[in-house]
């Protein structure tokens, strides 16, 4: 599968090895980037993609191997030498200064790089104007970055990279928060950049989209190189197979839910000004309902309102047929609602604490016995039974959660809520950062819980996952539920079209 590079590569990594505490993050990985190409870097979480990027951008030092940039050999890069060599990384959060204007954001690094100790507002403007005109963009240079749409922030970050004479631009999940039209516009810009001779590396899990603009593809798995080839030679299933090393079942498995099944969660006219309005939602016991939409559509805000994170100002919520008033998270928990947050690491887990401590976090009070002393034997028995039911893989439960893989860590968060025996379980991005194997197991856990009578709501932008597990899929746009798909209408293509509409 070796491609003989006719033109000299702009970037070449040879036999890169990087270990963290004895674990190989990268094991003799080689990678080449040709001038003017878009190269897709694919792999599951933990496959070594981010480590590879950190090595290219000088954030991490490889244990061994050679980096050749622009014909020069390096044993390792520093962030400064990477930038000097024309490497720019555009992270998912763009790393912009929200309180500065677009022009200032674009021009700032350039002015620092040329050694100016003083910042000149007058000089900033022409630099920024130049690049915006050159690319033919409609960016308001005087707008504060905080007020921009996600797509415009991305354009600002791209302009900033180009102003610093970027020859190699690495984009981390560039399409996650973009509408269909914005993705098309981004790809048009990418082609213009290519024609200027800029090479791009796309890191993405939205393989369909990225394959549209990529010429070549490299797949990593568990820190080792698996394949490199022309993008046209692969389809999504083939890549998923390379990424996981196994065939993944993405078929739709939903159990039958009787039409008269008891209602687990009923939401009527829910609204919070500026976030969402008129949200009606019924989830029956045994049902898994998907809630999707673009980032910023309000899908997450709806879930957070039901869980009391930022309560709704209008509307009613009933759990198991009983109206409840949810003004805070403890209200929601008391009503029998559990919530697996999107940001697992900061909102879901106590990373330095043991698995047992994490699992019991939402239910400690329930184990208070005589004189309010906790019944530790009963507590451990419960923790063990839930942990083994969810098949949390760890030598023992006193291990710190920090040491677990994404899939296992997510099981710990799930276990925390199953300990409270909730009537309704909301999950925001339940399989984000979880490898494909664990992913299907987590969906299987949700199916089992639903069959046992729980109402489950999955908020996700992973459409195959919604297709695979959800009885119904609701699509949120501009804070309103605009479309409901049920039964045979739940299809990957249909959901994709409705979201981007």
């Amino acid at each position, binding site marked *: 599968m070796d491609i003989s590079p006719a033109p000299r590569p702009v970037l070449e990594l040879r036999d890169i090895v990087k270990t963290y505490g004895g674990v190989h993050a990268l094991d003799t990985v080689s990678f080449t980037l040709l001038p003017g190409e878009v190269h897709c870097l694919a792999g599951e979480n933990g496959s070594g993609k981010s480590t590879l990027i950190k090595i290219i951008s000088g954030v991490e030092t490889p244990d061994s191997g050679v980096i050749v940039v622009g014909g020069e050999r390096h044993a390792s890069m520093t962030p400064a030498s990477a930038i000097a060599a024309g490497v720019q990384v555009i992270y998912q959060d763009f790393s912009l200064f929200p309180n500065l204007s677009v022009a200032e954001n674009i021009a700032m690094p350039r002015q620092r790089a040329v050694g100016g100790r003083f910042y000149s507002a007058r000089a900033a403007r022409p630099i920024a104007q130049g690049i915006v005109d050159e690319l033919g963009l409609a960016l308001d240079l005087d707008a504060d970055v905080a007020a921009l749409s996600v797509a415009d922030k991305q354009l600002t970050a791209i302009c900033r990279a180009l102003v610093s004479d970027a020859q190699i631009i690495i984009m981390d999940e560039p399409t996650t928060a973009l509408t269909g039209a914005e993705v098309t516009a981004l790809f048009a810009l990418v082609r213009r950049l290519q024609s200027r001779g800029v090479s791009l590396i796309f890191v993405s899990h939205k393989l369909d989209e990225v394959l549209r603009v990529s010429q070549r593809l490299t797949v990593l798995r568990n820190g080792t190189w698996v394949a490199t080839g022309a993008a046209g030679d692969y389809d999504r299933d083939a890549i998923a197979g390379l990424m996981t090393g196994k065939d993944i079942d993405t078929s739709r498995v939903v159990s039958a839910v009787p039409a008269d099944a008891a209602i687990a969660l009923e939401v009527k006219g829910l609204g919070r000004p500026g976030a969402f309005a008129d949200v009606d939602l019924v989830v029956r016991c045994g049902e898994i309902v998907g809630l999707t939409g673009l980032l910023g559509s309000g899908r997450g805000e709806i879930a957070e309102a039901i869980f009391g994170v930022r309560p709704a100002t209008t509307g009613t919520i009933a759990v198991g047929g009983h109206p409840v008033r949810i003004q805070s998270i403890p209200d929601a928990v008391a009503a029998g609602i559990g919530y697996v947050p999107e940001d697992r690491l900061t909102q879901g*887990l106590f990373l330095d604490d043991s698995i047992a*401590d994490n699992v019991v*976090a939402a239910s400690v009070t329930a*184990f208070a016995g005589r004189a*309010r002393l906790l019944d530790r034997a009963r507590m451990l028995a419960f923790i*063990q039974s839930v942990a083994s039911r969810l098949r949390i893989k760890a030598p*023992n439960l006193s291990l710190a959660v920090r040491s677990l893989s994404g899939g296992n860590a997510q099981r710990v968060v799930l276990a925390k809520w199953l300990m409270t025996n909730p009537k309704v379980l909301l999950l925001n991005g339940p399989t984000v950062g979880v490898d494909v194997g664990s992913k299907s197991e987590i969906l299987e856990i949700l199916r089992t819980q639903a069959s046992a009578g729980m109402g489950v709501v999955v908020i996700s932008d992973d459409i195959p996952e919604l297709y695979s597990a959800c009885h119904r899929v609701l699509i949120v746009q501009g804070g309103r539920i605009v479309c409901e798909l049920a039964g045979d209408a739940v299809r990957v293509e249909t959901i994709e079209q409705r979201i981007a509409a």
Partner: protein
Amino acid sequence: MMNRIAEADGMRRGGAERRDVLTDFVRKIHVNRSVGQMAALLVAAFAIFTILRPAVFLGSYNLQVIALAAPEIGILAIAMMVTMLSGGIDLSVVSIANASAITISMTYTAVSSRAGVELANSLALPLVLLGLVVGVAAGAINGLLIAKVGITPILATLGTMQLFNGLELVVTGGRTLYGAPAGLSTLGTTTFLGVPAIFLILVVVAVAIGVLLDRISLGFRIRYQGANAEASRFSGISSTRTLLATYTIVGLLGGIAGVVFLSRNPSASADYGASYTLLVIVIAVLGGTNPYGGRATVLGVVLATLCLQVVASGFTAMRLSSQQYAMAQGVILIGAMVLDYLRGRGSSR
């Protein structure tokens, strides 16, 4: 806390690979490192001073001084540890202790001058309770400011420290008050099998807080709050209730420390223990408390208290100055942190 529960689980699954057992063992040492470190330091300090000045240092007078001086500092350090465990700090705890002592002393003096010394002495228990109530009330004020109003602990308690201290200066006119119920002085001189009664108060406080942190759901919540306030909130734990309870309990501990002040010495003033605030922060951190929250042991803090008391009395035995003792505190703190850093660098990742 749960580690201890879960360890039993680890042992029960006897089939685990040897390597897992080994890494688990290493981890356990890591967790209890600060306790072990403090115990070793305590023994070392004791040995050094015993060798240098055996006659003075091992004298029963010297040992009594250690056992009498340690309780008030130990109780304040445990209070500081509890706030740090929740991710905060209480700079006002020494002022709270003084408020408790001053209230008891003033009320005692007022009663004895109007109704006679005997009546005042017979009211020892109610007076002690009054002092504790003052501590609880002051702690609750901290709790309200931090939990309800949302002021950062360091600023809220800096404010109340100044406030309480100012009030105490006004009330006492800046003078040292003399007078305390006779029962308290008796308490201060009573010993059981050679152990001073007030040292037993420290033991009781330590055990009670140990039970709170290990066996009561509030203790778990305090620790979750400090380990990750956001995850704690998303687990349905009310930070308002947790922090209110934390600072109120710490106020109670301050009140108890005030009673111990009076037991040792029947006098009270606004500026007693002026150097204690920083000292108890040092002790709490030395005892293995993570200043960022979420990690602490009562045992570690008690050992650290004893260790610094041994150094203090050892310095006195060697006729070194209190300035030199202050420097030694700094050296011990920095030394322990550097040791931590070196070891962390070797073992992390």
